[in-house]
């Protein structure tokens, strides 16, 4: 017969072997190589760069840390238009990506049916063609004598954009519009994928419930769908804005000297002019500006756990 009694609470615990403590160091061994890599090749370079930004000297005589913070001031006062332009272009591209990407993400999540997988592939597949080749294709699409420009001309759209300063003359290429168009194109998938992920999680019955509770389709979208897709909107806008703000490929290939962004300046300073302190200072300002904006944005959007 089975028996049960409660052991006296004060009785000393029976002599037992110490509990198994295997694997106490395992997490550290697992983390070590990868973290070392990130520390040496990501964090340490930031420190080197910070030090470079306050050095003075020349290529021939070498550089010394002289805490020359004036470099920051000089860099800002000389290149503030490029900074402003970067934020403006990246911001416009982000908004355009949201406007263009949301319907497509919504279509894949709720309306595509058996076409869902195919459309998904079509969104991802362009990734496999080098983005530089695809960006060059926009040179053909927006060519001065091409059908796009002549159509815009006939419809007098160019008159409007000229007035706004987005384009100049009969051209689209080598104007802000072309650069923003290229940025939007390049980072659109980074908007669509997170949007799709968060839309796909929404229970379809919520739409029916909202409809049942007297919400018209547009109200359902505003009050139910859009708020629930906020995590996707936040991470999508970040994934678009951050790389777009640092990009120089679109400005170089599709723009002109009047559309140079801060990425172009950093690249030129570093690789052609070889003015390392200025380049490091500019890069640091860009990093600080983006971290600052992103932090504020995440606070406002209220989604702290994005990863």
């Amino acid at each position, binding site marked *: *017969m*089975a*028996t*049960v*009694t*409660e*052991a006296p*609470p004060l*009785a000393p*615990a*029976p002599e*037992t*072997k110490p*509990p*198994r403590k295997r694997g106490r160091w395992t997490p550290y061994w697992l983390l070590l190589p990868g973290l070392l890599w990130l520390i040496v090749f990501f964090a340490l370079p930031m420190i080197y760069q910070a030090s470079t930004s306050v050095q003075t000297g020349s290529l021939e005589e070498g550089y010394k840390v002289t805490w020359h913070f004036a470099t920051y001031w000089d860099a800002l006062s000389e290149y503030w238009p490029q900074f402003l332009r970067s934020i403006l272009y990246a911001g416009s591209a982000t908004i355009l990506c949201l406007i263009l990407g949301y319907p497509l993400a919504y279509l894949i999540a709720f309306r595509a049916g058996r076409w869902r997988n195919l459309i998904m592939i079509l969104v991802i597949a362009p990734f496999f063609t080098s983005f530089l080749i695809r960006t060059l294709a926009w040179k053909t699409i927006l060519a001065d004598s091409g059908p796009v420009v002549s159509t815009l001309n006939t419809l007098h759209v160019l008159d409007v954009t000229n007035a706004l300063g987005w384009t100049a003359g009969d051209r689209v290429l080598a104007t802000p519009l072309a650069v923003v168009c290229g940025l939007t194109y390049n980072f659109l998938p980074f908007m669509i994928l997170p949007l799709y992920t968060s839309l796909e999680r929404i229970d379809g019955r919520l739409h029916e419930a909202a409809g049942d509770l007297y919400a018209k389709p547009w109200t359902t979208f505003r009050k139910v769908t859009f708020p629930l897709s906020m995590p996707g909107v936040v991470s999508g806008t970040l994934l678009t804005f951050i790389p777009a703000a640092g990009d120089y490929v679109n400005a170089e290939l599709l723009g002109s000297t009047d559309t140079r962004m801060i990425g172009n300046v950093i690249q030129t300073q570093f690789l052609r002019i070889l003015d390392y302190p200025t380049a490091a200072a500019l890069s640091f300002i860009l990093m600080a500006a983006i971290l600052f904006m992103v932090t504020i944005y995440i606070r406002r959007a209220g989604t702290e756990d994005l990863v």
Partner: protein
Amino acid sequence: MTTDNSGDVRLSGISKTYGSFTAVHPLELTVPQGSFFALLGASGCGKTTTLRMIAGLEEPSSGTVHLGDQEVTHLPPYKRPVNTVFQSYALFPHLDIFENVAFGLRRRGIKSVKKQVEEMLELVQLGEQARKKPHQLSGGQQQRVAVARALINTPKVLLLDEPLGALDLKLRRQMQLELKRIQTEVGITFIHVTHDQEEAMTMADTVAVMNAGRVEQLGSPTDLYENPQTTFVANFLGTSNLIEAEVDSKSGEDIVLRAGGGKLVLPESRCGAPTTTGGKVLVGVRPEKISLTHADDAGEIAENRNRITGKIADSSFIGVSTQYVIDSPVCPEFEVYAQNIDRDPRLVPGAEVVLHWNPAHTFGLDAAQDIDAGVAEVEEEAA
């Protein structure tokens, strides 16, 4: 009784604490070879922790675990002759049914597993499904794969962690019988953890009711039901009507109690509490033991029965029986289940009635306990 005791499970002084929280208080428990043993309790009562300590998935904070004469307290799970049927089965999603069942054999280095696996799949009636993946099977089929995967290793003890929790009611009934059949057939010790009192009572020959890390009572299902020792067991296992009463006198084998002006008789052998004249006792009686008689016919009730008067507050017809709630001076919500044999048309809400029952069905509990212990747990599990 067999002389082979290699399938005995002996827990001595075993406990588990997480920081300052004690999940299982020091516990002595012996489960004999070949029995079907159930650990019954609400979620968080320590039953699953106890099971996991037997499986080796949890290290006890103190005490020892023995299988037969072998101490296994510090053996890792893969070195214990014990297998588990996990909650929601934990079938390997990347392996088909055949490979799931063959997993344990292969890990022990057995090369030719085909015949054994096929026989096992026949035993659980899944011979046709061998090459399917787990997600292609129904819940009941997955459950049988989980049992087959554990049993094929012919463990000394089979542990079942809420094995039927994910199944619907009808399938659960069917699987209860199925598991009982398999246990009788293979003769292995089964230790079964569940929050479902009906499941525990149907299948197990011994049930331990656990509450807050302690075993409240242990015994056969009938014993637990008919003779609960604590208010928790009385309320958690089925329904009990509990009344606070005062000891009036003793006459022979019986104790005479006073409750709300009337007198009740309680056999002394069925009282788990110390009784001194003038002291308090909780008196309990199960709803189905009680008969209802309309107040007009009170004279026809036999003299030696316990009786209480009251008024029907509510009645609900549920097929095999009608359940009444009676408002009486001793208890505002007295429950009575009457079988639908000869229904008295006068027994409708508002009618004055007399409740009466055989004193042999009365049980007595220590009045120092919480009278509602176990009620919330039942409601929580039902939700």
